[in-house]
């Protein structure tokens, strides 16, 4: 009885959420720059993001991490604006800005008061084609990136495990190397490497401009024409496909590092929405991740953390939006008295259960309710809405996929979830990684009072 009422209430929501959703408008400049605008008038602000179709999965060996290095160099000046100017101008206009690099994209963003959008456009258009890559700036920034690598990876045992894990899980796929790059590659970048990378990929016909906020769509299109229209195109060559070699048996890796707790990582090869033969498979994998790790009522928390009390934490993740095949990942940290092998057994038992028994209606309804609610909550953030559109477009899926997401999740059945578990979560396509904690040398501490 209660359940029916609940379902009825939920059924009303898509309509409501839909009518509230403002729509996305698209305009393509003659030079190929795609402009996406989503109006949101709740607050007098705007986010502007420029997404380039380039990231670590585009990089050949020897210059891994060059996309990320170039991201840093994009703040180092152009013909019009010397190094540091970009950030100063944005700051003086009340803006927040930064950039990020992933496997499949490099993106730059500014959040500003809505009437300052032109400031962002002028600067982004300028550095799309007129960047100065100077040896002395590269020399300094290379040190910065090396420090970044030490901070993010070298001094973090779990990040080290993840890095080695990826390098083992993938064979011929460029997803095998880290976004930040291997240390020796970072140490040996030359200005020419960056120059070539910039010339090859930074062009209007390889970019998407996403604007979300308190703006008028046509005015944004006009502004984009004004600042970006004269930029020259590049000859963008199609990427080599580089699929991963078929995996022919479980792979295992142990990483020893100074640490206190062991950690388990498991990853099964799976398609993304882009690479799946049937899109329904990707949505079913998304639901599968929700069954295991969609909150405190999901199976990993309920069964492993609370029920059997094997893990202090456990998680599952699936990346729907990848350009290439990826991994369905499971991770867990054992409670004292248990080890990673116990957890591996327990997680595999969860997988078997998914393959043999249909998930309950209650679980499916819970995930659908969460997805629906999230689609409302996400609209609280312009930035997040921009991220969705930009990422989808950049990996080669259409931005319209963002609008179809809730409906597509709603169509997923318990049978489809069982079927993808059977098809993809198989031993021969599994990689297992253990973090084996090594003693941290006893901490010597010295204190000097009043010594200044």
């Amino acid at each position, binding site marked *: 009885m209660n359940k029916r009422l*609940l379902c009825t*209430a939920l059924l009303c929501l898509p309509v*409501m959420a839909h009518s509230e959703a403002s729509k996305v408008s698209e305009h393509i400049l003659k030079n190929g720059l795609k402009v996406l605008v989503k109006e949101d008038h*709740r*607050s007098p*602000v705007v986010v502007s993001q420029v997404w380039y179709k380039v990231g670590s999965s585009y990089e050949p060996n020897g210059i891994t991490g060059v996309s990320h290095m170039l991201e840093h160099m994009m703040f180092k000046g152009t013909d019009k604006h010397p190094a*540091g100017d970009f950030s*100063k101008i944005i*700051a*003086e*206009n*009340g*803006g*927040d800005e*930064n950039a990020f690099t992933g496997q499949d994209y490099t993106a730059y963003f500014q*959040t*500003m*008061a809505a009437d300052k959008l032109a400031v962002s456009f002028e600067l982004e258009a300028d550095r799309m084609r007129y960047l100065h890559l100077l040896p002395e700036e590269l*020399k300094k920034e*290379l*040190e*910065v990136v090396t*420090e*970044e690598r*030490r*901070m993010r990876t*070298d*001094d*973090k045992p779990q990040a080290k495990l993840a890095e080695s894990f990826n390098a083992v899980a993938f064979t011929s796929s460029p997803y095998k190397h880290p976004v930040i790059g291997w240390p020796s590659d970072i140490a040996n970048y030359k200005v020419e490497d960056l120059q070539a990378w910039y010339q090859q990929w930074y062009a209007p016909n390889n970019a998407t401009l996403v604007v979300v906020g308190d703006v008028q769509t046509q005015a944004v299109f006009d502004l984009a024409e004004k600042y970006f229209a004269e930029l020259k195109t590049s000859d963008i060559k199609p990427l080599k496909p580089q699929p991963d070699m078929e995996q022919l048996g479980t792979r295992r890796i142990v990483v020893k590092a100074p640490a*206190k*707790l062991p950690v388990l990582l498991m990853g099964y090869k799976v398609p993304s929405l882009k690479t799946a033969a049937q899109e329904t498979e990707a949505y079913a994998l998304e639901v599968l991740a929700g069954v295991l790790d969609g*909150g*405190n*009522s999901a199976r990993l*928390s*309920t069964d492993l953390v*609370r029920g059997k*009390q094997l893990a202090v*934490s456990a998680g599952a993740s699936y990346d729907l939006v990848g350009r290439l095949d990826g991994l369905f990942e499971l991770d867990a*940290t054992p*409670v004292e008295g248990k080890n990673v092998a116990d957890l591996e057994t327990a997680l595999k038992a969860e997988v078997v259960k998914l393959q043999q028994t249909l998930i309950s209606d*209650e679980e499916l309804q*819970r995930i659908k*309710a*969460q997805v629906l*609610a*999230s689609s*409302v909550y996400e*609209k*609280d*953030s312009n930035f997040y809405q921009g991220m969705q559109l930009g990422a989808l477009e950049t990996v080669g899926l259409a931005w319209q996929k963002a609008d179809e997401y809730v409906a597509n999740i709603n169509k997923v059945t318990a049978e489809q979830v069982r079927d993808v578990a059977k098809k993809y979560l198989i031993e021969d396509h599994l990689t297992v990684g253990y973090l084996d904690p090594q003693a*941290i040398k006893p*901490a*010597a*501490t*010295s*204190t*000097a*009072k*009043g010594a200044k």
Partner: protein
Amino acid sequence: MAIRLLGLLLFVFSSVTHAAAKIDHWQTPQGSRVYYVRTEGLPMVDIQVSFDAGSARDNQQFGVAALTAALLDTGAGQWNADAIAQRFESVGALFDASASTDMATLSLRTLTDKALFDKSLDTMQTILTKPRFNEVDFKREKNRTLAGLKQQEESPAALGSIAFSKALYNTHPYGHQTAGNLKTIAGLKAADLQTFYKTYYVAANAIVVIVGDVSKEQAEQTALLLVKDLPTGKKPEALADVMIPTTASQQHIEFPSAQTHVLVGLPVTYRKDPDYYNLYIGNHILGGSGLVSKLFDEVREKRGLAYSASSSMTPLLKSGPFTLGLQTRNDQTKQAVEVLNKTLSDFVTQGPTEAELTAAKKNIIGGFPMRFDTNKKLATYVGMIGFYEMPLDYLDTFQQKIEATTIATITEAFKRRVNLNALQTVTVGKTEVAVDVKSAK
């Protein structure tokens, strides 16, 4: 001179446009303070209930506040942890309970559709008023906390931050981390949590914040429903003032990492500090403004010594930490610490330049609407205003107060409040002496 005039004009123009949110405030019959803002456009609401029950109230049982908050949703009324999680998640609601230094907060984000809203609110109310603190849940959560504390020992950043708090606050309630430590957590019993809960989770000590698409009438009913079953109780006594260190100290923790983590600072400002705006904008210029701060420029842009270099000025109920931090390759620690200290001492003795101040004002005032452009950010601000009993027009007067600062007032405030001879320095990393790169190759 002309530049100054122009600057002033700009400020005047930019400040007219954005009126901040209108906050409604009232008290429930038992003395809980309620703060409500109506936002429209999305069928959702953020609800928070906060108590003066953060780790500052731990006494000698470091971590009891955090563990009490963590236990709340593991069993309440007739429901166990599974049932509670299912109740929230079946309606797409997000719930969290946690403690920070000053406060414990239960927060709920839910859709406003009546059936969904009622179910999540009902669940939150039960968690708030009838938590079980049973033995099985207590043991499990205690073990998870212990594991987390153990895991911190593999992080130089975490070790540095623990030592830094201790250096700044010693035995003051701000001197230990919110999660507690291995020894104090191991010594806790479920009854300790029960006692903590009974003392601090009372109506007279509660703040309710409601921000979202609900009417005032709904907000009144919601607030009343949430706290009506709490005992009235009383507010805890005021926290002791912080004894600000008067001499400098330096501490190094040896750790087998590639980088040394550096933390420098001292306790400085609190929420109702009359110097707050001068300290705030000064810190913004020094190290609080991301890619354009002085510290970032000196450490990263000019010398490539670190990926991140920044400072923060955290106002708490009592003097919160003023922290300057960076991470650098072990063998260049000495140089990086020198650059950091010189940047700080130059700033304290000379203050900002006219250009720096103008740029900072433009940034803060121009970016003002971005401080509360989401429901979540606005709810956080309203919660802060409520908890610290700041004036309801805090957001409305913010730009004006920033505009009013001058080079003279900022410099004077920093000189008086940041004693360069009392800085506490913590470094965590491997001792390595700088070598000449060429000869080493």
